[in-house]
């Protein structure tokens, strides 16, 4: 599974104050810790408290790029903040994210094309959060057809079925899992799917347990990528083991180490 580390987010107190004080070492340590724990890419989010997201995003990208060449996922609801990050990216990045609203798609898809970035498309719209699998599929179709028409390569698109907290939307969990499987067959070659894992346990007790249980189930439904906390070793071990059961990795006694080495 393609792991995007979620910890560089101004929402967390240590990162929030590091951004404010322009403290590079806190950010860089957080980046390296995640990479060493197995992250394939890092999410960069200046957080809701940032008063100058355009400057903060570019600063974060530059600071993280000093210590790793892993791809960065630029996470903001403001396209200007995303673009300021894209401008200073050295490697192919990921835009996190567009919704199925035409207003968003019209800005972010051309941006992804211009900067040769990947794009996460979340199946929500101004009408709200979808309530079942069919609504998710409809929104996915909207995103896919917009991207196709705009000449954006679907190989660079990740579809996110929008994961809801289990204590809010328990009835939707199976819809979400089935959406992952069905997103993959909408277009050929098979589209990539992604989730923001931590949402599933928002506000619940036993968060790590709920997170890793869902991650393993989603892996079985064919999930390709997840934004999550890679420092949660039990979570990473569970995902690696799930890939083993799914015959995506060759077993050996040291398979956990082997995965982290590759």
């Amino acid at each position, binding site marked *: 599974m393609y792991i995007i580390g979620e910890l560089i987010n101004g929402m967390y107190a240590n990162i929030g104050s590091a951004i404010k004080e322009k403290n590079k070492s806190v950010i860089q340590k957080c980046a390296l810790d995640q990479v060493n724990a197995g992250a394939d890419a890092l999410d960069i989010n200046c957080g809701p408290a940032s008063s100058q997201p355009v400057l903060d995003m570019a600063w974060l990208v530059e600071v993280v790029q000093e210590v790793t060449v892993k791809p960065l996922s630029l996470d903001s609801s403001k396209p200007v903040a995303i673009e300021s990050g894209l401008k200073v990216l050295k490697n192919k990045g990921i835009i996190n994210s567009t919704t199925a609203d035409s207003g968003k798609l019209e800005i972010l898809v051309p941006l992804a094309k211009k900067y040769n970035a990947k794009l996460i498309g979340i199946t929500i719209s101004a009408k709200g959060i979808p309530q079942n699998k069919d609504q998710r599929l409809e929104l996915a179709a909207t995103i896919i057809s917009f991207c196709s028409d705009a000449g954006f390569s679907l190989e660079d698109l990740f579809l996110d079925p929008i994961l809801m907290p289990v204590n809010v939307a328990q009835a939707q969990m199976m819809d979400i899992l089935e959406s992952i499987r069905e997103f993959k067959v909408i277009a050929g070659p098979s589209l990539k799917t992604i989730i923001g894992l931590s949402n599933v346990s928002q506000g619940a007790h036993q968060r790590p347990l709920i997170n890793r249980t869902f991650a393993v189930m989603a892996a079985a439904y064919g999930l390709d990528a997840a934004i999550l906390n890679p420092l949660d070793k039990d979570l990473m071990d569970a995902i690696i083991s799930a890939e083993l059961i799914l015959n995506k*990795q*060759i*077993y*050996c*006694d*040291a*398979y956990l*180490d*082997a995965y982290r*080495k*590759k």
Partner: protein
Amino acid sequence: MATQLMIEKWLGNVSTTTIGATKAEGGTRANVVKIGGEQGLPFLFQEAAMPNKPVIAFEVWDIPPVDWPDELVKSLGSVVNDPFAWAEKCVSEYKAKILCVRMQGAHPDFGNKSADDSAKFISQLLKKVSVPLIIVGSGDDQKDSQVLPLCCEAAKSERCLVGSAVQENYKTLVGAVLADGHNIIAESPIDINIAKQLNILISDMGLSLDRIVINPTIGALGYGLEYAYSIMERARLAALAGDKTVGSPFICFVGQETWRTKEAMISQKEFPAWGPEAQRGVAWEIVTAAALIQAGADLLVMRHPKAVEKVNKYIGSLMESSL
């Protein structure tokens, strides 16, 4: 309508292992042999590059061969009674680019030569021939643990390929190989899980993955060839998908496995319907090698000069389409 090829894109590749060191590199070899480096499945040149072609190593022993069928011994001639002459003949007459010397004489049942004597043999052999060497033990783990480290030392800086490390016994050899600048053969019993585990154990000791060559253990045609084939194919597919821990080149002991089969050994007198044994064994060695080359074999250790000649020709014709 023209047929459209389905082209696979691979993320990973096989590591490249260099055997032999020239003067400039601190050794005394006249040439080096590079194996591995494939970026796709064998010979699918439209899909990916295959920078190094499969290489055949002649097998020689440090003592006259024991239990080899008459036909095989006859093909090599009287030189087999003198290991140095045998090695020299492989290089001068059969144009071997690399030799695989088996320290059979150190085996407790085959003369029990001392580790010092074995090391001396390697020193002398290095003076007699200038091609890179593969050095393999006698098969007696305990004795090999004494013999191989001294052979490694005798060949210091010549960047040989030395084996075999097995899961139960690898530390001594890895240490010796690290100290003297060689490559190692990691042997697993037709078991991909152990092959992967052993590569991890060896690389954990500090020997980089590009200095490991996997011996997946093979069977000759009719003796489990297809098991070896499928193990090699599975490892190679995983390597190409990005798993570096199984991304080492393969060495296959084709001669050793072929020349102990009933089909290669038994005389026409005993099985008239099988035809002359002179052709049968050679054919068996050729067919076994040809199949393994398609499975991804990078280095083939073979015995019969005629079989080597034919398989070299086969490799040449396969590589032609890369031009």
